[in-house]
């Protein structure tokens, strides 16, 4: 009697292990910042006349992605805020200062995802907490899966692009840049190397 129960139990357990979704392919990626195949750019209107562009040159990040269960995907990005660069010394000094990013007090910005919702095969909405200038707020990023596959050097890579908008005041930036510059757009392009 005991032996039958034991065998049934073992059979049930093995079935559970082999059929459950925990056996799914969760892929872990490190964002390829070493070879700069990732970019974080910002865009804001200059006095309502033209787009002012810049980027954060130093950051690290990782993500995990499951093709069979995309909603389990996770992303973390850490940004070195002093690395901002809008190609102008005086402007960048100002941006790093108290009026804007206050990098001495807040040398990092961080994004940690909380949800990933696939819209179709290519598009998704990524929700997560952005900590910028010491303030943490939930934001959503429109994500496009740009590609995945083997690289010519023995690795496997996956790429995404993301668009989002943030309101400056939400993160404690109150400097008046004009009515057309209450928000800044962020564009991210990331390539992850599968671990």
């Amino acid at each position, binding site marked *: 009697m005991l032996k039958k129960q034991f065998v049934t139990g073992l059979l049930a357990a093995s079935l559970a292990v082999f059929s459950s979704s925990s056996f799914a392919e969760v892929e872990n990626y490190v964002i390829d910042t070493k070879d700069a195949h990732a970019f974080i750019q910002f865009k804001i209107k200059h*006095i309502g006349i033209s787009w002012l562009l810049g980027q954060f040159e130093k950051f690290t990040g990782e993500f995990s992605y499951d093709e069979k269960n995309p909603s389990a995907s996770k992303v973390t990005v850490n940004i070195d805020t*002093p690395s901002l660069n809008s*190609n*102008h*010394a*005086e402007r*960048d*000094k100002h941006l*790093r200062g108290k009026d804007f990013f206050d990098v001495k007090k807040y040398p990092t910005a961080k994004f940690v995802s909380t949800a990933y919702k696939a819209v179709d095969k290519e598009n998704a909405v990524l929700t997560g907490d952005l900590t910028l200038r010491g303030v943490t707020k939930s934001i959503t990023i429109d994500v496009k899966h740009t590609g995945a596959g083997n690289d010519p050097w023995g690795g496997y890579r996956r790429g995404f692009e993301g668009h989002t908008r943030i309101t400056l005041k939400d993160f404690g930036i109150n*400097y*008046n*840049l*004009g009515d057309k510059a209450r928000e800044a757009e962020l564009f991210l392009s990331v390539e992850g190397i599968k671990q």
Partner: protein
Amino acid sequence: MLKNTSTQYGILSISFHWISVLMVLGLFGVGLWMVDLGLYDAWYKKAPMLHKSVGVVLFVITVLRFIWVKLNPQPLPPEHSPTWERWAAHLTHILLYFLLFASMISGYLISTGDGRGIIIFNLLELPALPWQFPQQEDIAGQLHEIFTYSLIGLALLHMLAALKHHLIDKDTVLRRMLGRSV
């Protein structure tokens, strides 16, 4: 007279001194004020342009001044002056020259941190150095703040010392920099 003597500053030294006083005070005042201007303030662009342009002119003046100092005898310390006071005065003057140059050079390094030159009075361009170092504008910015505040502080001390000589010691130290015959 033009040149200094052992008891008196010549008109050129006196001019260098007081022109510098006015320019340094003006630069410091404008500097303090301009960093708080907003994008839409009328002087947002004009104030820094003037500050940088006048700073460059002061640099040229100070170089010429320094050359003139080296070519001239310097009036002697007052007879009553104890040794420590002579050293303090001499050190202060050296330090003032150092802080003048350090302030102006650090300022230059802020604006030229991206390789761009500085346009003086919308007329000519002072080029950047052939290379820049990482975070140049930030490091130079912090140094500029330290040097300029120190310069003003030391200049204040220097002024109080001159008044001490004039009002308490009742000697000729201040008078000779005012061109009063001694």
